[in-house]
């Protein structure tokens, strides 16, 4: 592995509070030097077989992005995505760490599957962090062996997509995960209220003749989970080993408000928001566009605005894509019969920069923090989401000013199910480096 010198770029490392011109040396998979321009130990060295030099003048250099909510579909659903194609999409989108959900076939209930997902044979471009299934076959009945999952590399547990409804099971999951130092991620949806539903409840659903999921179904479960965390936290004397509940893809104003309140009460409750939930509303379903169908669904304008507000004021801890690839033929069916989910890895940075930064004036470093430092810290990815000396050499280099048009057909993902096809993005990824290897090189023009 050649040493890489990134020269003349503008380093933005929110976790280290760095925002300025720096040169960076990556060696042996780690960051070995951060210096003022021209002051690295390589001086004025020329590129060689052992030294790759990236001229980053005019470009932003940042910690590789971290997505804590993706579906890589392997094992078992390779027609939608493979770990190789999903992580290639991640690399193209500037991501160097992805945490993948356990709703594969079979579900990720065991250390064997957890290890299989991380094996070099999968051909991953970037680091894959498996999330274990909280219960066997994500059925919400019998808990998996969390110690074994963690030892194999699982970073959290969840039954994503199949929320744990029974109080007793969720209580056990929280207690056991806490004991093992694992976060619990909940897809908050009271499925007793959402049977047969394919979009958000409200006037639009009524007009389209579709059954709607009430926002209460999300809020209700978030509230229940916070109650269980409160109970458990009271019982836990040590402040070190507090339960961590992470609410996946929050989509409603009340759910974000509940998280805000829980945090004010000193609980370790965090949440993420997906780009589609801070950009789109239920109206984007238009003429029954199955690429605007996901779960949680696109909500009302008021809820969407609450997601933006939550991001701007800091209650939202991370932007996560919920990258959920589906084959074209699976989405080419009646709206109510189409599977939930859209791809997101290749549009997240471009949309976040375009809207959060450019339009809504959020500082670049804060946008990047939501896409790297904060999610990395949330799930304890040590040495990621920052570029201090000794950290992993996970880097994204992009042109923060360049506008480009996202074309789903050009996507590296095996699936093209995105509502953002043809949207203007900002911030073109030029290089993505994962643990010192260049895993993506973007073209200079769009």
């Amino acid at each position, binding site marked *: 592995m050649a040493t890489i010198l990134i020269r003349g770029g503008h380093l933005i490392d929110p976790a280290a509070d760095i925002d300025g011109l720096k040169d960076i040396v990556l060696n042996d998979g780690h960051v070995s030097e951060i210096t003022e321009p021209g002051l690295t130990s390589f001086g004025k060295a020329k590129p060689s077989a052992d030294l790759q030099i990236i001229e980053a003048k005019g470009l932003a250099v940042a910690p590789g992005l971290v997505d804590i909510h993706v579906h890589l579909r392997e094992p078992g659903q390779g027609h939608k995505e493979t770990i190789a194609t999903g992580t290639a999409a991640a690399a193209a989108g500037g991501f160097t760490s992805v945490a993948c959900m356990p709703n594969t076939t079979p579900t990720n209930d065991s250390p064997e599957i957890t290890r299989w997902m991380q094996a070099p044979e999968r051909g991953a471009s970037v680091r894959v962090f498996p999330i274990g299934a909280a219960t066997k076959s994500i059925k919400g009945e019998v808990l998996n062996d969390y110690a074994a999952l963690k030892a194999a590399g699982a970073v959290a547990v969840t039954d994503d997509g199949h929320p744990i409804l029974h109080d007793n099971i969720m209580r056990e999951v929280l207690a056991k995960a806490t004991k093992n130092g694992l976060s619990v991620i909940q897809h908050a949806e009271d499925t007793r209220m959402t049977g047969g539903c394919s979009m958000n409840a409200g*006037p639009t659903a*009524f007009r389209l003749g579709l059954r709607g999921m009430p926002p209460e179904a999300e809020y209700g479960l978030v509230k229940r989970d916070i109650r269980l965390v409160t109970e458990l936290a009271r019982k836990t004397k040590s402040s070190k080993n507090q339960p961590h509940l992470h609410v996946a893809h929050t989509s409603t104003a009340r759910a974000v408000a509940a998280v805000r309140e829980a945090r004010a009460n000193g609980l370790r409750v965090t949440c993420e928001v997906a780009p589609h939930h801070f950009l789109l509303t239920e109206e984007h379903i238009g003429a029954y566009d199955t690429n605007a169908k996901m779960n949680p669904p696109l909500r009302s304008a008021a809820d969407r605005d609450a997601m933006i507000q939550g991001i701007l004021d800091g209650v939202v801890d991370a932007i996560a894509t919920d990258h959920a690839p589906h084959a074209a033929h699976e989405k*080419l069916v*009646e*709206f*109510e019969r189409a599977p939930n989910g859209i791809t997101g890895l290749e549009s997240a940075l471009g949309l976040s920069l375009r809207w959060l930064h450019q339009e809504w004036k959020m500082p670049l470093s804060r946008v990047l923090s939501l896409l790297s430092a904060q999610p990395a810290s949330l799930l304890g990815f040590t040495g990621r989401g920052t570029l201090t000396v000794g950290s992993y050499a996970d880097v994204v280099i992009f042109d923060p000013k360049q506008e480009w048009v996202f074309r789903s057909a050009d996507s590296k993902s095996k699936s093209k199910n995105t509502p953002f096809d043809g*949207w*203007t993005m900002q911030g073109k990824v030029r290089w993505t480096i994962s643990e010192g290897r260049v895993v993506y090189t973007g073209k200079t023009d769009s």
Partner: protein
Amino acid sequence: MPVKTPPVREADPRKPAPFAASELPSPNLSGSLLSVTSLTLPAVSEILAQATELEKEDSLKRAKRLAKRRIALLFYESSTRTRTSFELAAKGLGADTTLVSSLSSSIEKGETLKDTGLTLRSLGAEAIILRHPNSGAPWLLERETRLPVLNAGDGMHEHPSQALLDLRTMLAHLRPGVKKVNEKTLAGVTVSITGDILHSRVARSNMLLLPRLGARVILCGPSQLLPEIAAQTGPGIEVERDFAKALAQSNVVMMLRIQAERLAGLQLDLDEYKAGYQLNEERLAAHAPKALVMHPGPIVRGLELTGEVADGPQSLILEQVHHGVAIRMALVLRALTASKKKGRG
């Protein structure tokens, strides 16, 4: 390079969406009818005029209009009135029709709507009349086959030909002789729609069409079958829970069947429902003695209305069926003559 023209669907997400769902993108094919919202009032006038012309026309002459043209009826749900009426309409124009229903076809074997549609196109179908249990299915069929599609009822969404035949029925009684409709044609007319609004595509098509001609639409029923948000479907729509009050204001009383097949676990006390919302002779005489009584069918005698009312002098139920054939002749003719055959093959 910076982008010159922003894509159609991109706008500031905080501003209103690029298009409201009430104005779904106009069909790609001008002969399609997927939603009443895509019809302009002049287009409605044309359809009404065409229906009258075709109805009056000598049947042998009429049968030459679409002689040997092929039209497929694709029915994923059972139907008596709509199917027969579309079939008679197409045949009356001389077209060959073929009926594909979800039972006794490859649909049973798991063929998708797209593939069934493409198969019908390859068999020479020039238009498809679709009834489907999923809302929005006609958009998928039109997009994938590029054929004109007539929506004969999609899930709980719309039933546009029913709204047009209901309109024709109302006009025949309330505005006889009117040739063209405009936004004032039904000014002063109040239409109440009572019953299972939630699951009714007939209700949605009527509430989206009639106010555009100046009518006031009152929706009536218990909250399980009529959510308050129904009033937000479009302008000119109100919700009234008291049946007597709704009746008292109505020039037209439209009753709907309770769609047991779509209740999806909803518990409804039928005796209570009848006590509150059944249209019987006493109620009609007391509150709406002059109103026109309509029902899209199928009627369940003794439930949403009594047999006496269905057969009574105010009832236009069978007349609606009659108007259906004329309207559907106009729609079938429009489907095959208005389309530009673009994207074929």
